[in-house]
């Protein structure tokens, strides 16, 4: 791992080409990963992807190029290429940018705890743990036909320098752990899976559950789902777990308030200052790990060199803010919110979420279950998507019927859908216990981004895609 500040070389290259806006982003990404299935090692990997992404603003038009070295001469040539690309396209640009708004740009060193601790931890120890847990999951029941377990560490070091004042060196590490099991009975297969991800070391990664506990839960889920039935579908009251609340905030709301999507006409356009949810709903996106350390999308500085912080998107049900990069902030005449993120050095920054959540309320889980006469309790996040019209969907692994305020036996997971703001308006209870629970997730929007999301348990109304008889 590098111990040298990369921003000096970038500043030197920047100074040599200072006639116009230049943004240089050195990004060293080193990934260590192991994966085991059914006692066999499928992946034992170390991967490095390093270079400098160059973005320039020339004649009101963006240009981008990159180089895989941190040599001032190569970076200078990449600046020339980016400028030439911008000039080549400027005549086709309708609305030229007059410049970027001022922002609180980062200067100095920003280290997230855990980097050195994991860098010094031998991967051999992690492999042993993964092997043991996969075996434990596989042998926990005669119904289990297969199990898999994996562990990944992503070490990221960045240097960001801009001609208007950013000069930041950041380091962080994001570990991920996942375990799954497949149970089989009479030719039918069911899968159980658990995963966690964090920004920080193992104290953050395994804060909520031990690795052994996660393996046990995945195996039990697979076996229990074999004998579980499918719920019926329809519009109904549901109680969403913190991980599913995280999916709701990310998929249903977060994407629709990304300012680039708003400008294209998403359902959040023109809604600032209006009621979009019940007054129990306060929803934020933050570069900081609020409530406790380790949220998986944590970053101190975004990829435009803007200091991150908390953005309150919805406060007491009223839409307060969109998520911005510097360009969209200029368009809306607000301050950038630090949401510009690029996956790797050769990707350009896009408006992305970080840690998105619904703030905790006052209800206990028991009170919330007791408050539902006929509905479902849902847990276990799978994939999700959102649409321009606010229609969202996401999958769940497990469901429990709630009848007369009592929780019933496990049923198979379902996909749920709804119109984002309609669902937020239907929220009538918000739990008091907060949890980050999507740290192993990636968001896809042309390029991946490591994000986290969470919240408390939450009661609302959605459409459930059950099996219609």
């Amino acid at each position, binding site marked *: 791992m590098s111990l040298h500040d990369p921003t000096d070389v970038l500043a030197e290259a920047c100074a040599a080409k200072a006639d116009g806006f230049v943004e240089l982003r050195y990004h060293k990404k080193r990934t260590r990963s192991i994966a085991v299935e059914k006692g066999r090692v499928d992946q034992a990997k170390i991967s490095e*992807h390093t270079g400098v992404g160059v973005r320039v603003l020339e004649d009101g*038009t963006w240009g981008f190029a990159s180089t895989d070295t941190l040599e001032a001469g190569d970076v200078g040539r990449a600046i020339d*290429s980016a400028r*030439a690309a911008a000039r080549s396209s400027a005549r086709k640009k309708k609305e030229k940018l007059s410049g970027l708004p001022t922002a609180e740009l980062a200067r100095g060193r920003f280290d997230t705890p855990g980097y050195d601790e994991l860098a010094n931890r031998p991967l051999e120890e992690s492999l042993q743990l993964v092997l043991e847990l996969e075996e434990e999951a596989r042998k926990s029941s005669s119904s289990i036909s297969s199990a898999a377990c994996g562990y990944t560490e992503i070490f990221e070091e960045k240097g960001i320098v801009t001609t208007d004042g950013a000069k930041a060196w950041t380091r962080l590490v994001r570990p991920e752990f996942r375990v799954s099991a497949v149970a089989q009975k009479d030719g*039918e297969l069911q899968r159980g899976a658990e995963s966690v991800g964090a920004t920080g070391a193992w104290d953050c990664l395994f804060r909520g559950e031990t690795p052994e506990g996660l393996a046990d839960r995945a195996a039990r889920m697979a076996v229990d789902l074999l004998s579980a039935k499918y719920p019926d579908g329809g519009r109904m009251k549901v109680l969403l777990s913190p991980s599913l609340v995280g999916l709701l905030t990310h998929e249903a709301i977060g994407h629709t308030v990304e300012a680039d999507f708003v400008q294209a006409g998403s359902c959040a356009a023109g809604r600032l200052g209006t009621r979009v949810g019940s007054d129990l709903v306060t929803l934020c996106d933050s570069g900081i790990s609020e409530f406790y350390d380790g949220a998986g999308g944590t970053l101190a500085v975004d990829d435009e060199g803007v200091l991150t912080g908390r953005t309150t998107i919805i406060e007491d049900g009223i839409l307060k803010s969109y998520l911005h990069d510097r360009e969209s902030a200029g368009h809306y005449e607000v301050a950038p919110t630090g949401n510009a993120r690029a996956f790797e050095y050769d990707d*350009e920054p896009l408006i992305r979420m970080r840690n998105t959540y619904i703030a905790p309320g006052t209800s206990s889980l028991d009170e919330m279950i007791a408050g539902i006469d006929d509905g479902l309790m849902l847990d276990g996040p799978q994939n999700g998507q959102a649409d321009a019209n606010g229609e969202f969907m996401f999958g769940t692994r497990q469901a429990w019927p709630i009848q007369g305020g009592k929780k019933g036996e496990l049923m198979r997971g379902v996909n749920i*859908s709804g119109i984002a703001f309609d669902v937020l308006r239907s929220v009538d209870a918000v739990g008091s216990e907060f949890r980050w629970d999507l740290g192993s997730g990636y968001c896809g929007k042309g390029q991946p981004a490591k994000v986290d999301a969470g919240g408390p348990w939450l009661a609302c109304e959605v459409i459930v895609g059950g099996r219609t008889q």
Partner: protein
Amino acid sequence: MSPETLQTKPYDAPAQEARLTERAEQLMNLALAAGADEAEVFGAHSETISVGFEKGDLKLTTVDEGTSLGLRVFQNNRLGFSSTNQSGASSLETTARDANTLASFSLPDEANVLPEPRALDERPTLVTPEIAAYPVETAVERGHDFLSRALAVDPRLSIDQASFTVTRHTACNVSNKGVRAAESDAQLGLSVFGMAIDGDDVGGFDYWGDSLRDASRLDAAMDHSVRHFADGALGNLNAGAAETYRGPVLFAPQAFCEVFISPLVSASSAIAVQRGRSALADKIGERVAHESLFLHDDPTDRELAGAATFDREGMPAGKFTLVEGGKLSSYLYNAYAAAVEGRTSTGHASGGARAVPGLGPHSLSIAPGDGGDTAAMRARLGRGLVVQRFSGTVDPASGDFSGVAKSARWVENGEVVRSVKETLISGNAFELLGQIAALSTDAPTLMGATRAPWALIDGVSVTAG
């Protein structure tokens, strides 16, 4: 390179293949010197021009190139893998050392052996001179042309994102077993993503795109992509309700692939079968779908993006039958899965330079049926739901699927009567593949990657919101 204009040299495929192979051999030799019994390097080099549009205007032009090398070593049948995009001598030495360090404490597995070299077909190059020499200015011009065509269709269309890309790519594979394979490719790519907005009515998004190696097809591909996108996005306006029922649903080719073909192909992985997570275990020669289903993987089809002469391990890639008349013909094998069973790879190692080879198809092609054109398929449906895209979850092990029907339409008397929203579909893909009622007589290309027909499938659960 001049700072005023970007003078790009034509992509010299033979020279790139030679350079990449030389670097790959250098890393392979370093790995052997560092203690590997066996070493294989996959190299990938690409040069791209990407012109991106957002909100109906040009956003960013990117000119980029990069090279990655992926090293797989075995020490006493123990796996180690490392990759790098760095070219310096010390980086290559570190990469060789990393892979060997990992192999030193990994578990032995008798199937961890590199494949013996096999003869590759002689096929015409995938690189045309026109795309090899495609200038940045032309890419900007044609990208803008593409955007303009989309915006001209209807003022209600909002283009969230569109892109025009030029990709020149070289891949190589070398191993100490004697594998030497290198091939280059050059493609143009189009994509458009957005929605229609009519007053307060914001329709669901839609997208389409294409990839092509023949630049003379560009105008036709632009028109087709724009028409497909516009029809979908405009059709999503004024969405109403569907009805809840269980019965026949008409799937557009993309949705058919997402819901039914994807789990079928996943379960056809020999590794999935060997590891006990495939519903197709012991099903070779047995009926796994309706007799009308014929599914091939065809990397010889030059019109599809996945055309290739060899796979990720340098093994020959040829036309391959997965399902014939509804019966499962074979599983897919890479070298590892083949070694487990003591047979040869089917040439289905997949992936890039940054991970251990995976397992998957190159270019899927589903044969058309005799159900007639799209109108005839709607007539067969009579009354019910048409799903054009699927936004949901398909479990590759169980085959259970559940999700939202996107760009969905409600049909009565064989005619579309309205767009629908808030409608979920669910079922089990492996069960419902046996209930294909009809496949259309055409099998269009899906964004340059796959050929598939429309499919009318009975027994699907539809839940209307």
